[in-house]
């Protein structure tokens, strides 16, 4: 477990360093994810090593957003007079993005021939 955790943190650190070094728009952890993915593809040992620990962290991914969420409550008044407007924008835009994203995915799957039907 300690090896897996070390590897995950090292990937994140490498990602943070790379993104700062080259001024890339991607955040360090996202590059770290790409890096870990490449390592897992390259080595079955790495893949077996990180799986249990990584899955443990991901099992309660929701928990990790709680501190930031609590921070938002204190800033809600910052939305001020625009509060209702922002609420409308966020709800409508999120619903549209979800519908269009999933809709296009399903349509393109149908057009390109479904090689991997995953209907439940």
């Amino acid at each position: 477990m300690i090896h897996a955790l070390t590897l995950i943190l090292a990937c994140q650190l490498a990602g943070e360093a790379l993104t700062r070094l080259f001024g890339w728009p991607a955040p360090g952890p996202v590059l770290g994810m790409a890096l870990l993915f490449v390592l897992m593809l390259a080595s079955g040992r790495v893949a077996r090593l990180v799986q249990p620990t990584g899955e443990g962290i991901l099992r309660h991914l929701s928990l990790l957003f709680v501190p930031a969420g609590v921070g938002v409550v204190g800033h809600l008044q910052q939305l001020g007079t625009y509060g209702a407007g922002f609420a409308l924008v966020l709800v409508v835009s999120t619903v549209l993005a979800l519908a269009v994203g999933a809709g296009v995915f399903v349509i393109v799957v149908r057009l390109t021939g479904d090689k991997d039907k995953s209907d439940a």
Partner: protein
Amino acid sequence: MREFAEIWSYLAASPLIWLTATLIAYVIGDTLAQATGRAPLANPVLIAVILLASLLWITGTSYATYFEGAQFVHFLLGPATVALAIPLWQQRHAVRRAFVPICAALLAGSVTAVLSALAIGHALGLSPQLLATLAPKSTTAPVALGISQSLGGSPTLTAVLVILTGMIGAIVVTPLMNALRIRDWRARGFAVGVAAHGIGTARAFQVNPQAGAFAGIGMALNAMLTALLAPWALGLFL
């Protein structure tokens, strides 16, 4: 009662109490979510946030004090993002086979998220600074803050909008997809990752592992695409 006050003043200043409170609030939220069969509105993040915000308000605790404890949980967001490589690796064959739909849905979802927010915001008369603040709202927080700053928006306010977007996405995705009769877990997951970043991804993992893996990919790809797309999209409305 004096003893209680002494113990309280000691504990309230230590990170332990707020770290524990964060976990307890989440356990309560998660238990309620499970008890309702993961009903969309019984979102564990939402429940935990409401409980903790009330607790902070009742005890008159500042967010800075709370965060001294909660930062240990918050810190894990980085390693958890790295760990998203694991479901991606497990689903690598399915991902490769869905390469074309992924690219198409990324472009469509990302453009819709940014343009629809800007168009509605513009119609409501939001200032250019508020539009810049709003543009990256579907992106994962660290990227969204960077985009907001570079466009001349307010990063603090962007953080608020990002979290709210994540919660809205996590709550509406299941009823919306059911209403649209979209049953493909890849499509459902990918779309919620693009539209509602990590909080949507967390929801997807609770519903289906394949949806979770595709949500993680959607979140990562959308972070990169929005960074390129947002300046152009904002230019259309200025």
